[in-house]
């Protein structure tokens, strides 16, 4: 281009694309600057004029309210900051469990849609169409207000779950294991077992690559993880006790309590997201060329191993990116908990804390920052993975 410059006819700088580009950008920056400045100055003015407290001073103040599901120690004399962590952990809990179950269900349905069994394929299709076209919020309300309300309401009529659990309208109550003296050894044994299993796997893989000899990896890994802690426990004389739930004056007492709000949210998220994951899986399986399946069949592989060893590994490359975005959607959708009263981050923080402190800007900003961080970290990991599995053309 430099050589061409000398022959370039003289034009007004007004028509020079470079000058124009810079001008546009300066204008845009100025506009955004003015808007942001205006917004911030308005906010500062509004806040000072209304004498609203600002800043995160409330973080260490006593919260004063109760939360009915806490994964970490919390009581109403804890701080607002503590309440934030409780809410965040509750969000992460429901998101993590939701992701696990939605993946299982979604893969099952996605594969079922491509099944050669006509009835099964059609049913999976109907499931996907129906679930995808009904708003999630409505589904959550349905699970919470219509389905779970069909559970027994009286304490005495609770369904009894074999092994000492109860299920009624107040939730699911399960025995809570308490680890006594000596269970520490079992824990150590478990960790050692896992480490051994990982080392074993790596070595087996290397041997497989070098000699082609296969070994029953799964069974041995399972044995390595399960047997040592069991042996350790047996040696210690099984120091595990269970606190069994029992009916009290008003509620089931003791044990692990699983809230109906939690169950409804988990159900709703899993069933909704599974429909989307099924579509992702279907598209991924479609993307693997038919020749691959046919080649596998002609080698004599049955349907199951063909899927497991040939199709799915190739489909994963297509499936993983949209699957991740479904995982993110599930995490973001878990914020709908606020509609059915599950104490997640949004319900606790932008609900109760915002109301008690009145500091909308700080609270909403922080909540958004949390979700944004989750999203960005996930996309970062996603990009790393993408780079790892990208087709290397040789």
């Amino acid at each position, binding site marked *: 281009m430099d050589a061409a410059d000398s022959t370039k006819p003289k034009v007004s700088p007004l028509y020079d694309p470079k000058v124009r580009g810079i001008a546009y950008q300066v204008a845009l920056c100025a506009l955004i600057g003015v808007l942001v400045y*205006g917004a911030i100055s*308005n906010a500062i003015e509004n*806040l000072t004029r209304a004498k609203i407290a600002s800043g995160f001073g409330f973080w260490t103040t006593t919260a004063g*309210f109760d939360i009915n599901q806490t994964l970490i120690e919390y009581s109403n004399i804890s701080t607002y900051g503590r309440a934030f962590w409780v809410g965040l952990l509750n969000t992460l809990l429901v998101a993590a469990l939701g992701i696990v179950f939605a993946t299982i269900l979604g893969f099952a349905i996605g594969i079922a849609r491509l099944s050669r069994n006509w009835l099964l394929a059609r049913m999976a299709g109907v499931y996907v169409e129906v679930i995808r076209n009904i708003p999630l919020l409505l589904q959550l309300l349905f699970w919470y207000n219509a389905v779970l309300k069909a559970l027994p309401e009286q304490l005495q009529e609770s369904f009894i779950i074999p092994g000492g659990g109860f299920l009624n309208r107040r939730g699911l109550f399960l025995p809570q294991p308490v680890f006594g003296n000596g269970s520490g050894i079992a824990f150590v044994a478990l960790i050692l077992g896992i480490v051994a299993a990982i080392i074993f796997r790596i070595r087996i893989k290397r041997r497989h690559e070098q000699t082609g000899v296969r070994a029953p990896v799964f069974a041995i890994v399972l044995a390595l993880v399960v047997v040592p802690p069991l042996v350790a426990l047996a040696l210690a004389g099984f120091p595990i006790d269970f606190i069994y739930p029992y009916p009290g004056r008003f509620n089931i007492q003791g044990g692990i309590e699983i809230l109906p709000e939690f169950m409804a949210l988990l159900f709703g998220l899993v069933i909704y997201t599974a429909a989307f994951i099924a579509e992702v899986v279907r598209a991924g399986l479609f993307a693997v060329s038919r020749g691959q399946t046919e080649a596998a069949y002609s080698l004599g592989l049955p349907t199951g191993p063909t899927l497991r060893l040939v199709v799915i590994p190739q489909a994963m490359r297509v499936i993983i990116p949209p699957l991740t975005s479904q995982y993110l959607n599930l995490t973001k959708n878990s914020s709908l908990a606020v509609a059915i*009263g599950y104490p997640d981050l949004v319900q606790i923080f932008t609900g109760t804390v915002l*109301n008690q402190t009145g500091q909308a800007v700080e609270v909403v900003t922080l909540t958004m920052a949390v979700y944004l961080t989750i999203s960005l970290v996930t996309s970062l990991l996603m990009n790393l993975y993408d780079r790892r599995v990208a087709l290397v053309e040789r």
Partner: protein
Amino acid sequence: MARVMTRIALAAVLSAIASAATAQTLNTIKTRGVLNCGANGTLAGFGAPDAQGRWTGLDVDFCRAIAAAIFNDANKVKFVPLSSKDRFTALQTGEVDVLVRNTTWTSSRDTTLGLNFTGVNFYDHQAFMVRKALQVKSALELNDAAICVQQGTTTELNLADYFRARKMKLKTVTFASADEAIKAYDSKRCDGYTTDASGIRSEMRKLVNPDEHVILDDVVSKEPLGPAVRQGDDQWFDIVKWVHFAMLTAEEFGVTKANVDEQLKSDIPDLKRLLGSEGKHGEALGLTNDWAYRIIKQVGNYGEVFERNVGQGSPLKLPRGYNALWSKGGLQYAPPIR
């Protein structure tokens, strides 16, 4: 480029206007021609639209009284239904001029939230409602019970305090709105429901079988409910405060909606000052001197408003209790107009 410059200029002008327009709530309302009143929207007896969409309630009538005092027209009010979540922001940001939404007066709301409560238009206490079938006589028997409550309210905090102070265990189930909380209670998600006693009376009518439930006598906490305004505008603060006092004074001297025209002829000095035939008490507030007359003529005195909305003339049938005048053993007491 020119377009950008105009935009910058426009933004600058706008922010200049914004800074000039602080305080002076009364003038803003007069220019606007309507009072923006933050009300509940779902609490029958205090603030809710009826089947025809006409707002009724104790809090609603208070806003009508302010409008009557300013415009001589009690209908120049726009009611903005607010949830417990957005009520304070709505007031702080000027979306509403006054918040009359059965809101409890507390020190932190008076300070860090940047509000000023002008008084108490309803003295209330927090109470529990339970099913009769549980045969609970006192809240002290509620150890380990599950209680449904609305989040972000003083109620939620009082509930936690009450149980902690008595070393009782509690399972709170919190919901974003009172409606959801009462529905969950009705479907037996909880053993009890708690909010202000007046609120329970009102919400009770949403239950399928109200007769199966009982309100316990225990007083969980004091709940002084009152109107609130933004800080920083003393004139507006005074107006809202004195509208309530004028309605109390009218009741004290027996001035009602029906007899106010007759009372204009009265020779009693207190009445003359109230109704504006003596002194310039209205003008001192930035209103006209017949401000109280307008209120009583169009809305009524405190007693009338009370009976009509929550008292014997209403489905709630609440007793006057603490809300009787001081002269009748209650707490409602107005400083003299003079």
